[in-house]
């Protein structure tokens, strides 16, 4: 009848086609597994390389891919093409969060302020150290680095793959100046920020003419040059051995030690190393909030508007008389400055730094946080940093997996593997990042959220 033509009948699953696709995927997986998975290499007692066949692992991999692809193909066939793909959040959730973003910011801030107290009440004095240090401080460092890089990548649209260089400049400035000249943390914190900003300007100057991918590669080269100099110039930086015994920050002159003039004794408390961790937690919280505050305020200043304009269209910017040189340099040096702050905090927290902490992978992680969070979005950065760093830290906690896979199973081995895979998957799933809508800074009558698809990053 006429109705039949218009009502979409539920589409029949084509088993054969799905099976064919699954078999193809399985075959490809088998090819990929040969020989890299099917034979493992290891050294025997005479230090010669021998091969261990591992066909059972290959069989598992092929089976998993076969079944997964089969189910996916079936799902794709039976799905109503008019319905949108997978939705994790109900429609309008993001909009709801954005309308009430002030409220949620306050809530998030409140949670961060009381986080150490929550950790202590839930995990006790002994267990809280791990939670505050590994999760709180660690995540906040990356949130701060993400927000700092966000100024360069998210606002100004300059893709920087060597951000970790400024982190290193900050860390080494603090370590060397504090160790050799005995200056205090509170003097060196701004000083290392200034030094990093200076380096940002120095490295930013030659790359002004470059755009897009080329800029990314040159910044990568600069990052690597700084690391290699730190490795090789042993008189200056002590090379791979690194700098140890870096003075720890004090509570306005009161050290966190068990001595009589230590923090615990002065305030009449029982000594525990937790006080220092809690203090560091609040320091990095303040630094991160400062970064967020400055970048929020800068967006409303002429220079911030110029950054965003530069990100959208450099040629238009130039023809409107914006000084692109200054605009780019301010973005570079401000981003670098916050990297420097984070670096000097990192050195003070660790007490030991070596070039190993400033490898390219760190830059990639920070960039991943900015891009996956949705460029230009502070909330997105914070969520991505929590998910990425907190998630990989959580892998350490998965001891129960040892009971499933045997005692040799070490989940931390898979940390970076999952990290890399997550980057690819999120890019394919949401190329604009998790929070992909923007709030305009300049608007007529009413502020409307704009989809990030409307804006083009990375051209300038």
């Amino acid at each position, binding site marked *: 009848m006429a109705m039949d033509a218009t009502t979409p009948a539920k589409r029949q699953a084509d088993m054969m086609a799905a099976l064919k696709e699954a078999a193809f995927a399985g075959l490809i997986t088998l090819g990929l597994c040969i020989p890299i998975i099917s034979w493992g290499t290891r050294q025997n007692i005479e230090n010669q390389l021998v091969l261990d066949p591992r066909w059972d692992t290959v069989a598992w991999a092929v089976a998993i891919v076969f079944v997964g692809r089969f189910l996916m193909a079936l799902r794709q066939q039976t799905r109503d093409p008019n319905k949108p793909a997978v939705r994790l959040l109900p429609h309008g959730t993001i909009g709801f969060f954005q309308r009430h973003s002030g409220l949620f910011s306050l809530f998030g801030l409140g949670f961060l302020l009381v986080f150490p107290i929550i950790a202590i009440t839930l995990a006790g004095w002994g267990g809280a150290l791990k939670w505050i240090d590994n999760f709180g401080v660690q995540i906040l460092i990356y949130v701060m680095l993400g927000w700092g890089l966000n100024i360069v990548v998210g606002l100004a649209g300059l893709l920087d793959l060597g951000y970790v260089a400024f982190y290193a400049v900050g860390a080494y400035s603090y370590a060397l100046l504090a160790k050799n000249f005995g200056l205090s943390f509170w003097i060196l914190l701004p000083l290392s920020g200034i030094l990093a900003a200076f380096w940002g300007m120095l490295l930013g100057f030659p790359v002004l003419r470059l755009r897009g991918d080329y800029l990314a590669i040159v910044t990568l080269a*600069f990052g690597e040059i700084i690391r*290699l100099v730190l490795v090789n110039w042993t008189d200056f930086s002590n090379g791979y051995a690194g700098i140890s015994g870096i003075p720890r920050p004090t509570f306005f002159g009161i050290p966190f030690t068990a001595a009589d003039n230590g923090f615990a004794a002065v305030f009449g408390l029982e000594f525990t190393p937790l006080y220092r961790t809690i203090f560091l937690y609040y320091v990095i919280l303040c630094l991160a909030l400062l970064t967020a505050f400055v970048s929020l305020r800068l967006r409303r200043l002429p220079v911030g508007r110029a950054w965003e304009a530069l990100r959208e269209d450099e040629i238009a910017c130039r023809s409107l008389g914006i000084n692109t040189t200054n605009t780019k340099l301010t973005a570079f040096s401000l981003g670098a400055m916050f990297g420097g702050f984070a670096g000097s905090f990192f050195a003070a927290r660790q007490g030991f730094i070596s070039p190993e902490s400033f490898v390219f992978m760190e830059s*990639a992680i920070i960039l991943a946080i900015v891009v996956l969070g949705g460029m230009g979005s502070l909330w997105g950065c914070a969520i991505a940093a929590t998910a990425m760093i907190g998630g990989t830290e959580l892998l350490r906690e998965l001891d129960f997996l040892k009971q499933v896979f045997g005692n040799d199973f070490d989940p931390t081995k898979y940390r*970076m593997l999952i990290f890399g895979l997550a980057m*690819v998957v999120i890019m394919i799933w949401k190329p604009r990042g998790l929070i992909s809508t923007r709030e305009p800074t300049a608007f007529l009558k009413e502020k409307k959220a704009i989809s990030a698809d409307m804006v083009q990053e*990375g051209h300038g």
Partner: protein
Amino acid sequence: MEVFVQQLINGLTLGSIYGLIAIGYTMVFGIIGMVNFAHGDVFMLSAFIALIFFMLISAWLGAGLIVLALFFVLILAMFFTSLWNWTIERVAYRPLRGSFRLAPLISAIGMSIFLMNFVQVVQGPRNKPIPPMLNKSILLIDSATYPVSISYKQIIIIVSTVVLLAAFWFIVQKTSLGRAQRACEQDRKMASLLGIDVDRTISITFVMGAALAAVAGVMYLVLYGVVSFHDGFVPGVKAFTAAVLGGIGSLPGAVLGGLLIGLIEVMWSAYFTIDYKDVAAFCILAVVLVFMPSGILGRPEVEKV
């Protein structure tokens, strides 16, 4: 003089390896305008594939037929590495075509991290040495102070690089496949209107790049006799430098750039200090990109509004 000739030979050997990897960068950049960040790690993966096949085949053929074994290893490594790169393109880059510009780059960085750690997980973090082979060498200049020689390894590396480059040059210049590639490079939309399967052409570009990276991987294994999971990053960046130096998008440029980078690195190590050889390579990259962004043989980029 003897030192110079010896370093020239060493530099050309190393430069051939860089040139082979650089072609993969330059072809992919030419056709989809993307820096394939994972290419260095594909090279590292190919070296591992070659390592395992070498052990299997040399155990089967015996130590006498090492050149024949290497030939089989080369063919197998080229095939399986191509399969890997084909899959990577299919899974990680193709869905992002037409997305915003940074998306494929980020995806490629993710893929690079994944590959590096994948090899670490499945093959272990230690260096993997193979027994030394082809140790004989030919004495070129018999000098009392500094005898100059070229080893069999170096001859094999240089000769096979030249042969394979000639083959690929022929494919790109003379076959219909190469014509399709060059057409996609110039204007992808127009090429698809004229009936060229763009997706297929791009896939084949990735396969060709991987095959050449696999050749480089086998040569690297023959030359150094050891490979580990983080060996992909630095040669990858150096090969990219070579591609940029020669002019990105140009095949002869990539080879020329590779040879230059190899020579500079070796000469730098011989005459200055070995510590800063990587710094030298990175400095060249920065200087070339800043002052000569179109490279030696590249076409200058025209900015269209």
